[in-house]
């Protein structure tokens, strides 16, 4: 009994000492207490090193089209959606285009064309190699030179010069107020991948690539040595549902947690099933571009094309999840001009204009589309036919589409521009300026080009906005560039218990979901 009593005493004394020790540590040594708590959590396997990952279960995101490769320099929505889970830029944009530090911790402009950056120390790639300035240089060089890079125009004129172990300068050809927004699109990868065509995705981001199942999904897992706050979910699965029905089904079956590109016709059903629906502007305006060298070089015919297309129809085709557009950037984008009136629909006048040019002959018209836009194509065809055109709708692959407009083989191109950076600057620079890479119709207006050049160099936000609005007004009023049709909306569906705020740029970042 004495032995039992002694053991009981020892146990009580030990428990008392431990309790007192814990309380004293909590009160008087909070840092050490937190460190000890963290260590204990790790020791007991409750968390990985560093901040705790909260959820053991997998976060499942559903997107539309399965990407061929994960290419960091691609701006394709599907590809970038994957790449952004694993790669990071020097600076990132938040949900509302606000610039935030990422792999660069500070920056400043030392001269009108020189920005100095400080690289974040102790950042590791997924292969546990450290991030260096050479990796930054290599990433920018890939963005500029890789054959399939969509960032060539973005990084055009930029050069990087190291200024120490962790600092470097980015030099631009001209004072660029949009530099930070531009470099937020350049994802950083290891230097040894700079020139490779295929490689396993290795970035610095919160998730590492795990596996892929062709035409189905990609799997990721949380990166244990991530420099920032750990994601809330240990595992991530991004699946692809090209068919609208499949997206609806996946949501109803709870096979996914968040989906973008929800079909409008599914909204009521999904809401009835308890899912949360968010609708956001896609920041993308779809429009027709006139080939300046084709049959539509005639102003009257151009006007006829504009008059015969009813914006309301496009809204109806999108079941209300689109807005009629009278200009080339979406509302919410810097440069949107509220003074520009709605586009006029007048089919009769359109027919008269065509007749004036062609008499009773049908005017052949070739219209180039990317595959998947047949519904719009059918409407265009009907309308153009009704006023005296003989339209031929051709649906092409992306590469074919590019080749077609580079050769100037069609009269009309159905195109869309997403203002990823929240500003009309890149649209003007790349799609309107005579030197623009995406100036499909070879539009050229010296005064507009001059304004574009001025706006691209204006640091004062208010003045810049005024210039961009002025450009838009001129572009629309000239009627020579094209016909703005509609701006689409993106519909998201998510589980109500998730904290998910759709980003203005339309990408779903797993790291932001709680």
């Amino acid at each position, binding site marked *: 009994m004495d032995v039992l009593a002694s053991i009981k005493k020892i146990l009580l004394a030990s428990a008392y000492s431990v309790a007192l020790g814990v309380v004293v540590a909590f009160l008087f040594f909070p840092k050490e207490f937190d460190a000890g708590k963290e260590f204990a959590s790790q020791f007991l396997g409750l968390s990985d090193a560093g901040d705790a990952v909260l959820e053991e279960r997998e976060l499942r995101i559903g997107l539309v089209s399965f990407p061929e490769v994960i290419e960091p320099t691609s701006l394709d929505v599907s590809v970038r959606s994957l790449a952004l889970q694993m790669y990071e830029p020097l600076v990132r944009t938040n949900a509302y*285009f606000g610039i935030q530090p990422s792999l660069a911790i500070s920056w400043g402009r030392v001269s009108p064309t020189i920005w100095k950056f400080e690289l974040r120390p102790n950042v590791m790639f997924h292969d546990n190699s450290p991030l260096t300035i050479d990796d930054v240089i290599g990433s920018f060089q890939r963005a500029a030179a890789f054959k399939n890079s969509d960032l060539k125009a973005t990084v055009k004129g930029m050069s990087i010069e190291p200024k120490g172990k962790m600092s470097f300068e980015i030099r631009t050809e001209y004072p660029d107020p949009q530099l930070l927004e531009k470099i937020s699109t350049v994802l950083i990868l290891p230097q040894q991948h700079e020139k490779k065509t295929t490689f396993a995705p290795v970035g610095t981001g919160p998730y590492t690539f795990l596996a892929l199942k062709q035409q189905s999904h990609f799997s990721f897992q949380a990166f244990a040595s991530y420099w920032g706050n750990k994601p809330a979910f240990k595992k991530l699965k991004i699946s692809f549902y090209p068919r609208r029905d499949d997206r609806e089904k996946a949501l109803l079956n709870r096979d996914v947690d968040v989906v973008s590109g929800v079909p409008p016709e599914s909204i009521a059903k999904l809401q009835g099933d308890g899912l949360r629906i968010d609708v956001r502007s896609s920041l993308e305006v779809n429009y027709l571009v006139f080939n300046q060298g084709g049959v539509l070089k005639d102003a009257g015919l151009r006007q006829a094309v504009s008059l015969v297309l009813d914006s309301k129809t496009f809204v109806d085709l999108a079941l209300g999840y689109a807005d009629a557009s009278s200009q080339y950037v979406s509302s919410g984008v810097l440069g949107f001009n509220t003074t520009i009136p709605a586009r006029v629909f007048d089919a009769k006048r359109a027919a008269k204009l065509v007749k004036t040019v062609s008499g009773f002959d049908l005017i052949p018209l070739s219209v180039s589309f990317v595959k998947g836009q047949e519904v719009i194509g059918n409407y265009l065809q009907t309308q153009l036919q009704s006023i005296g055109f003989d339209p031929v709708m051709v649906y092409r692959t992306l590469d074919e589409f590019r080749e077609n407009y580079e050769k100037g083989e069609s009269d009309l191109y159905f195109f869309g521009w997403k203002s990823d950076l929240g500003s009309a600057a890149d649209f003007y620079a790349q799609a309107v300026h005579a030197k623009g890479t995406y100036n499909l119709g070879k539009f050229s207006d010296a005064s507009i080009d001059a304004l574009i050049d001025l706006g691209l160099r204006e640091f004062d936000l208010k003045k810049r906005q005024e210039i961009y609005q002025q450009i838009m007004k001129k572009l629309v009023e000239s009627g020579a560039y094209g016909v703005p049709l509609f701006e689409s909306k993106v519909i998201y569906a998510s589980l109500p218990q998730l904290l998910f705020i759709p980003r*203005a740029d339309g990408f779903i970042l797993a790291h932001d979901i709680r």
Partner: protein
Amino acid sequence: MFSLRQKLIVAITLLIVLILGTAALLFVREKEQGLVEDTFYSVSTFADIRTSSIVEQYQQFWLQKNYTNFYQRIQEAQATLDAVRSIRLYSYSGELLYDSEVDRDKPYAGAPRIERGAPLLSQIQSKLPSIQNKGEKVVYMKRDSRGISFVDKGGTTPVAFDAKDRLKFVANAADNQYSVVYGITYDSLGSRIADIRNRMIVLALFGILLGIGFAWFFASRISGSINQLVSGAAIIAKGDFTYRTDIHTGDELEVLGSAFNAMAEEVDKRTKNMVYQERVTKELELAAKIQTEILPRKLPSLASLDISAGIIPAEEVGGDAYDFLEVEKTRLVFYLGDVTGHGVPAGIMVSVANAILYYLSHKMPILQAMIEANGVVKAKSANNMFMTLAMLQWDDAAKKLTYVNAGHEPLLVYSAAKKLVDEVHGGGMALGMIPDNSKVIKEMSVGFEVGDCLVIYSDGLPECWKDEKENFGMGRLKKAVADYASLPSALSIRNAILSEIKQFAGTYKQMDDMTIVVIKRKV
């Protein structure tokens, strides 16, 4: 029943919880009020600084449909002060143009949201910044070098308002067209207070643990000592008086422990004394019994002699004895002896001597009997036990008294004729001192006429003390014999002498037996 330790632990813990709890409550309340007041000043300053830029950005971005940009700036502004829950922009006429909580980055598409309620509309239209508290009281503010003062709508009459009140919103007019209303949240304050509260709880827990520890420690000291005392009492109750506590607490408990030990020692001593006393008493009783039994039950009755004898035994019975042996019809042998020591051993020796002398007296003359008796006493008694003896023989036919003395007190003989008391020393040596006393004792005749009085006594009479310094002494004894020898009977002489001695001694303790034999010759 709850132990002392448990009671102490509960009491101290409750006390600590009470004290800490009260202090914590007061502190948290003070802190909360302070934070609420800080929030008021932060938000009103925020409103002052931000209002015009918000309106400017509204005009530059929101009205230009650059919703994202505008919302980004609203978010940035709100990020600088977490107490601002919402930012609402109103037109002068009260139309809600923008609500950061509802509209966010999408334009409102519905019927105009017109604020018609009196307090808010007044606030929107006032040039003075204003606040509304949770109780929907509205006051306006004026800022000057002395700080913020609360006034009425007219800006003149001071209004009582406590900055520690929780607010619903702050309204600031930007210009003649717009006003901005800032909704206030105390969530972060709530979490800070919760943090403080949690710390207080942990502090209370700390206090409780400390209290338990201290209570345990002190209770252990107290109850340990008490347990020692309780155990000690139980052990002592079982008769083991050697148990001593070992308490060194430096306080009353140590005093109690010392007192307990002293008590145990005292009890031990007294018990031992008691046992000893009991043993002694038993011994004394036995000795007294022995003494009583060997004394003659009946004094001889002779025509020529009036005999009286008696013993007043001391508390601790001594070894006095006397006997009268009618060895023949006309020969009476009598003796008075005193054995050294007290108690049973003396009693046994007296008993043995009595038996020997009885036997020997019937067989031989008294001198021979003394010599023989000495040999037996020497051989059979302890080395330190002796017996003084005065032995006499009365030959009633010859009317002759002979005497042999073995170291005893001298006889006192009163001569009726001379009216004097004579000491008759017999010499000799006490029985048992030497193996053969034949050379040291002798038989002698003692003149004993009619009317004479013979007193044989033990040393208890002259050595009867009245105090530490003075005893009765031989002088007084001889005088007493002289005074009372003429009394008519031996008994009266005996009683008078003893009475005088007793009177002399008073209440002083009688240290030795007082034995006296008085013989008066009648014829």
